[in-house]
C-alpha cells in the first residue's frame, strides 16, 4: 500500500516536472518573439537570449504603422480571407446540396475527380495559373488571388459539406418540395440552417488559411501596395533584410487574435474536431 502511494507521488512529480519543462519549451519561442517586438534595434544578432532583457520600446510598432505598408497589407489579407470564406461557403454549400440531393449524369465521376484533384500539390500548376490570370487581367489583383483560393478550397469543402448533408434525412426537404417550394427556396431556408455547424467549421478554416499563405500571393501580387500580410512579414526577414524586431512586432499583432480565439474555443474545438475530422 505504501509503495503504491509512493509510486503515485513519484508519478505526479514526474508529470509536473515533465509538463513544466515542456511548457518552457513551448513558451520560450513565443516569449522571445514578444520580447523581440519590444526590443530596441533592428537585427536579431544584438538580442539577448533571455526574454525582455534587451530593453523596452514601442518603436517597432510605430515604425510598422508609419514607415511600412503594414495596415494596407492587413486590409488586403482581410479582404482576401473574407471574400474567400464567403465564396467558399456559398459555392460549396450549393454544390454540396446538388451532390447530396440530386441524381444526374456523371455525378460519380465528378465526385471522384474532385477527390483525386485535391491531392495534387496545387502550386505545381502555378505557371498555368499565372498565364490564365494574365489572360483575364487578374494579375496583381486581389480578386485574382481569391479565384485561385476558391478553386483550391472547393473540392474538399464540397466533400465535407456533402458528407454532412448526407447524414440529414431527406424527408425534411422532400416534404417542402411536395408543398411546392422551389429548389432554391429549399436550399436557402432548410438546407443552409441545418448545415450551420459544418458551415461554421468551414468558414473558420477557410478564413484562417489565406492569412499566412505564401506561394500564391507571391506569384500573383507584385506591386508593394497589393502585398498580403504574410508576404510583407516575410520580406522583413528575407535574405536581403534582417529586421527581426519589426517582423516580431508584425507577427504578434497577427498571432494574438488567433491565440485568443483558440484559447477561448478550445472546448468547442475539441468537439468540432470530433465531428469534422473523426467521424466523416
Amino acid at each position, binding site marked *: 500500500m505504501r509503495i503504491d502511494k509512493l509510486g503515485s507521488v513519484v508519478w505526479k512529480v514526474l508529470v509536473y516536472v515533465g509538463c513544466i519543462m515542456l511548457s518552457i519549451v513551448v513558451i520560450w519561442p513565443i516569449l522571445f518573439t514578444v520580447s523581440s517586438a519590444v526590443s530596441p534595434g533592428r537585427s536579431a544578432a544584438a538580442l539577448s537570449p533571455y526574454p525582455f532583457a534587451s530593453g523596452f520600446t514601442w518603436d517597432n510598432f510605430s515604425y510598422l504603422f508609419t514607415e511600412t505598408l503594414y495596415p494596407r497589407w492587413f486590409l488586403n489579407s482581410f479582404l482576401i480571407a473574407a471574400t474567400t470564406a464567403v465564396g467558399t461557403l456559398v459555392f460549396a454549400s450549393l*454544390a454540396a446540396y446538388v451532390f447530396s440531393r440530386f441524381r444526374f449524369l*456523371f455525378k460519380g465521376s465528378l465526385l471522384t475527380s474532385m477527390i483525386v484533384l485535391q491531392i495534387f500539390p496545387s502550386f505545381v500548376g502555378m505557371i*498555368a495559373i499565372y498565364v490564365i490570370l494574365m489572360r483575364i487581367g487578374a494579375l496583381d489583383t486581389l480578386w485574382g488571388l481569391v479565384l485561385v483560393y476558391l478553386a483550391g478550397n472547393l*473540392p474538399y469543402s464540397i466533400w465535407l459539406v456533402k*458528407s454532412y448533408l448526407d447524414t440529414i434525412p431527406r424527408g425534411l426537404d422532400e416534404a417542402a418540395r411536395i408543398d411546392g417550394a422551389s429548389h432554391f427556396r429549399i436550399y436557402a431556408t432548410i438546407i443552409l440552417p441545418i448545415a450551420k455547424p459544418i458551415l461554421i467549421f468551414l468558414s473558420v478554416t477557410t478564413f484562417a488559411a489565406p492569412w499566412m499563405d505564401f506561394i500564391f500571393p507571391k506569384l500573383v501580387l507584385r506591386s508593394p501596395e497589393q502585398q498580403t500580410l504574410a508576404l510583407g512579414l516575410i520580406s522583413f526577414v528575407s535574405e536581403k533584410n534582417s529586421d527581426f524586431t519589426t517582423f516580431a512586432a508584425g507577427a504578434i499583432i497577427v498571432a494574438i487574435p488567433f491565440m485568443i480565439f483558440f*484559447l477561448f474555443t478550445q472546448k468547442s474545438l475539441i468537439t468540432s474536431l*470530433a465531428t469534422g475530422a473523426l467521424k466523416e
Partner: protein
Amino acid sequence: MTATAASTKKLKQGAAPLPDEVAGITRKRVCTFALLFMGLAHIALLRQKWKGFAFALVEVVFLVSLPVIIRNVIGLVTLGTPQPQLPIKFRENSLFLLIDGVITLAIITVFVVVYWISVRSALLDYGAGTRRQQSSAKQQIAAIGTRAFPVIGLAPTVLLILFFVLVPLVFSAAVAFTNYSSPQHIPPGNTVDWVGLDNFASMFGGDQMWTGALVRVFIWTTIWALLAVSTCYIGGMILAVVLNESKIKIKPFFQAIFILPYAVPAVVSLLVWRNMLNGAFGAINKLLMNFGIIDSAVPWLTEPNLARFVVVLVNLWCGFPYFMLLTMSAMTAIQQDVKEAASLDGATGLQRFRYIVLPLVLYQTAPLLIMSFAANFNNFGAIYFLTNGGPNVADTTVTGAGATDILVSWIYQITIGLMKYNYGSVIAILIFLVLAPFAIIQFRRTKSFKGEM
C-alpha cells in the same frame, strides 16, 4: 396559326393519340436525329422546341468557333515554330499555345459531354412520351428552370475547378513531356517542343546527377513524412493521455499552454525558429553558451544530418497540439462506464490504457494518420521557411536540391530558381502517383462515398 398548333388540333380531334411508332417515330429515329445535330430530335420529333433550341444553340456556338478550336489544337500539337527573324514580341509563344490548347481540349470535352446529355435527354423524353403531351413554351421554360437547378448550382464550381485546378494540372503534366527549361527553351524568346519521355528517361537513370538527387530527395521525403506524422502523433497522444489520466489539478492551465503552438500561424513560428536556431547569432546557441553547455556554436541548420533532425523537432513543436486535441476528443467519446467496469475488474491504470483506451483511440484516429502523411509529404512551408531546403550538398548547384529539401520544396527550387519546368513537372507527376492511392483509400472508406458509387 403555327404548324405545331395545327397538328395539335388534329391530334385532339382524333379519338386517341396515335402510338409514336405509327407516326413513324421510332426510338432509332429519335436517336439518329439526336446524334445528327444537337437538339434536332427535340425540335423535330419530340415537341420540346425550347429545350431543342437551347441544345442547338450550344452546337451552333461550337461550330462557329470551330476555326479557333482547330487553330488551338494545331498549336497544341506543334507548340509553335522557331521564328528567329522576328522580334521577340511577335514570335509564337509556346506557353500560350500550350495553355490555349489545354483549355480548348477542356472545352471540347465539355461539348462532348453536353452532346451526350442531349442525346440521353432525347431518349428519356421519348420514353416519357413528351410528344403526346402538349406543353406550352412557358411550361417548358419552367421545366428547364427546375431541371437546370443542379446545373446552375454546380456551374461556378465546375468552371472554377476547370480553369484553376484542372487546366493547370493538365498543363503541368503536359510540360513533363516537353523541353520547357532554361536556358535554351524559355518562351517568348524560344519555342518549346514535345520530347516524349526524354525527361523521365534522364530523371530515372539517364542523368546520374539528377537521378541521384531524385533518389536522395525521395527517400528523405518519405522518412520526413513518416517521422513528422509519428512524432506528432505519439507526442500528442502521450500528452493527451497524461493530462487526461493523471488527474493533476492544473490540467486546464497546461492544456491551454500546449495548445499555443497550434494557434500561432505556422509561418510565424517557423521563421522565429529559424532565427533562434541561427548558427551565428541565434538565441539558442547564445543561451547554451551562456550556460556553458556548449563551447562553440552548433550549426543547427547548416549541417545536413543535424538540420534534418532539427526540422523534424521543430515540426513536432508546431504539430503536436493538433494530435493532442484530436486524441482528447477521441478519448471523451470513450464511455466512462467502460473504464469504470475495467477498474472494478481490477485493471490498473496502465492496463486500462493498454487494453481499452489505446485501441479505441487508435481505431478512431488511424485514418487521419493517412491524411496527415499525405499532408506532410507535401509540407512545403515546414522546409522552405525553416531551412529553405539547405544546407547545400554535393549536387545542389546543379540540381537545386539541398539536404532537407523534400519533393515539393525541390519543385519550387527547380522551377523558380533553375527554371527547369520540365523536370519540375516530372516530380509533380511522381508525387501524384505516390499520393493518389492514399487519397483514394482515404475517401473510399467514408460513408458518403459508399452511398454514391
